[in-house]
């Protein structure tokens, strides 16, 4: 028997089953989540805007539809959060910035429309690194979001609010955006499951951009099953976004429960396992061994060109944001946080040839991955090489006592799928001795999110890392 005070602990899958059977009302569930937000938000600061009234109104409408016999599917009546760079009609959308502090869109993003049409209840807009240009969610305008596992630590970013909100049970699922790792990084350090879909799989229409050629929207949830449910709703072509692909969207749930038998796992020891905190390496290697016990096989590979990825990532992710921000950087430069402002200034000074060569490098790396996918079905590696760092840290020690720049260090593994456009999911796979979550990244073929969900679900069927609850 579930009590009202425990409703916020439900996964999307669990809650939707109860709602479909009319054993749980969307109003009850939404009230429980809003109560949870009110109880922990002063510690976590996952939200920029909480939509108490709007959520209650939507939940009532969702309940009335069910009572009238109209059940819309697995997201009907489910409280969901949106990163605050996703347009919401009539609700301010700040992108974590002072510049857009008063911006109230007159239209929804396509992904927001699709969630609402599926019956989801939007409970709030989550905190983020300013304009998504950074990986800490230490936001100078709306405060730092804190990691629910240790409030003195960061939630990573840029979708740090979404990751923390899911981990803290302040929503049942959330949308984030990912350019260089901004869904997968906070998924890993907050102990949740999040996917960056293939570039072009999900519409970016009415989402404040960071770098157009790498931006994606994706779900962050507690389980791979919940990720599949959310991705099913938001994926697919959008005539309003010419970047979306006209590729059919499969039934993602049909990939679940199929185990990992026969899956060929690619491992790249001389890059992805070369420079890690020991706890991260141990956890990810143990996870791969678990999958081997399920019948997967491991194939070691070397990727000749992978080492250029950080430079290419920094180049592309410097130049494109600076183009988007060109006007504001000249007219309102004082309204940016110091860290984002200097990144935007840097991006103005790259050479055009460096940017184009970085884009050509992406083709080189993508071709190398596509060739490797003749031999393997997925790649597995750590999502990032370290666990959550203290809030405010600009450097990180991975090994050997050497301090490294946070931005370069944090996206050295997530940047690979970002550059190649490949889908990748982060799955909880353990904890450090300080009880800080560790994530593994599974990278797949283009548009093969289904296999990523299959492997993630197989792993979660035999492990409990994703069921652990932060000590709030």
């Amino acid at each position: 028997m579930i009590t009202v005070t425990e409703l916020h602990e439900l996964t999307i899958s669990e809650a939707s089953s109860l709602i479909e059977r009319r054993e749980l009302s969307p109003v009850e569930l939404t009230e429980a989540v809003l109560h949870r937000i009110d109880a922990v938000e002063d510690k976590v600061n996952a939200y920029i805007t909480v939509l108490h009234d709007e959520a209650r109104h939507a939940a009532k409408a969702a309940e009335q539809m069910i009572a009238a016999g109209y059940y819309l599917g697995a997201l009907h009546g489910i409280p969901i959060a949106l990163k605050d760079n996703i347009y919401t009609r009539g609700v301010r959308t700040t992108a974590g910035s002072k510049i857009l502090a008063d911006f109230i869109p007159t239209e929804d993003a396509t992904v927001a429309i699709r969630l609402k049409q599926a019956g989801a209840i939007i409970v709030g807009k989550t905190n983020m690194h300013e304009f998504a240009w950074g990986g800490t969610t230490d936001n100078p305008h709306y405060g730092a979001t804190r990691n629910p596992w240790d409030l003195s630590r960061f939630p990573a970013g840029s979708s740090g609010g979404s990751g923390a909100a899911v981990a803290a049970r302040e929503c049942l699922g959330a949308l984030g955006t990912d350019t260089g790792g901004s869904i997968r990084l906070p998924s890993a350090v907050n102990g949740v499951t999040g996917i960056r879909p293939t570039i072009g799989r999900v519409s970016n229409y009415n989402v404040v951009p960071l770098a157009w050629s790498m931006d994606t929207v994706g779900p962050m949830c507690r389980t791979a099953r919940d990720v599949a449910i959310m991705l099913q709703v938001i994926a697919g072509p959008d005539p309003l976004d010419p970047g979306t692909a006209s590729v059919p969207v499969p039934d993602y749930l049909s990939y679940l429960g199929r185990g990992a038998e026969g899956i060929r796992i690619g491992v790249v020891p001389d890059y992805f396992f070369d420079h890690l905190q020991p706890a991260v390496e141990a956890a990810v290697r143990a996870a791969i061994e678990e999958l081997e016990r399920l019948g997967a096989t491991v194939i070691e590979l070397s990727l000749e060109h992978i080492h250029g990825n950080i430079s290419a990532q920094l180049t592309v992710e410097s130049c494109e944001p600076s183009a988007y921000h060109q006007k504001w950087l000249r007219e309102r430069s004082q309204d940016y946080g110091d860290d984002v402002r200097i990144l935007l200034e840097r991006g103005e000074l790259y050479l055009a040839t460096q940017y184009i060569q970085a884009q050509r490098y992406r083709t080189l790396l993508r071709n190398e991955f596509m060739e490797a996918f003749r031999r393997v079905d997925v790649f597995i590696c750590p999502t990032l090489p370290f666990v959550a760092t203290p809030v405010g840290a600009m450097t990180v020690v991975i090994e050997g006592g050497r301090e490294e720049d946070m931005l370069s260090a944090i996206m050295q593994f997530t940047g690979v799928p970002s550059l190649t456009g490949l889908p990748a999911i982060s799955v909880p796979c353990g904890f450090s001795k300080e009880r800080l979550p560790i994530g593994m990244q599974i990278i797949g073929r283009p548009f093969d999110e289904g296999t990523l969900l299959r492997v993630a679900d197989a792993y979660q069927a035999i492990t409990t890392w994703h069921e652990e609850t932060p000590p709030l």
Partner: protein
Amino acid sequence: MKDSQPTVTEAAVGYFLRAASLQVPEGRHALLAEQLAALFDDANELSRKVAERPELVPAVRFHHPETGFEERE
């Protein structure tokens, strides 16, 4: 191997900021130059490698899951 001279100087940063009509306090020009010098070392090395591959075109989107290579029209 890195050049013994910095690839980006404070004066160069000031010049290009002016060329881009971007106001940046002069106190930050040196910091930008230092950061860009490190970034450009890597970017230039990557550029040299890519320049040896004339067949590469900048294209990153997939539209055919079977091949993964074909681009949208």
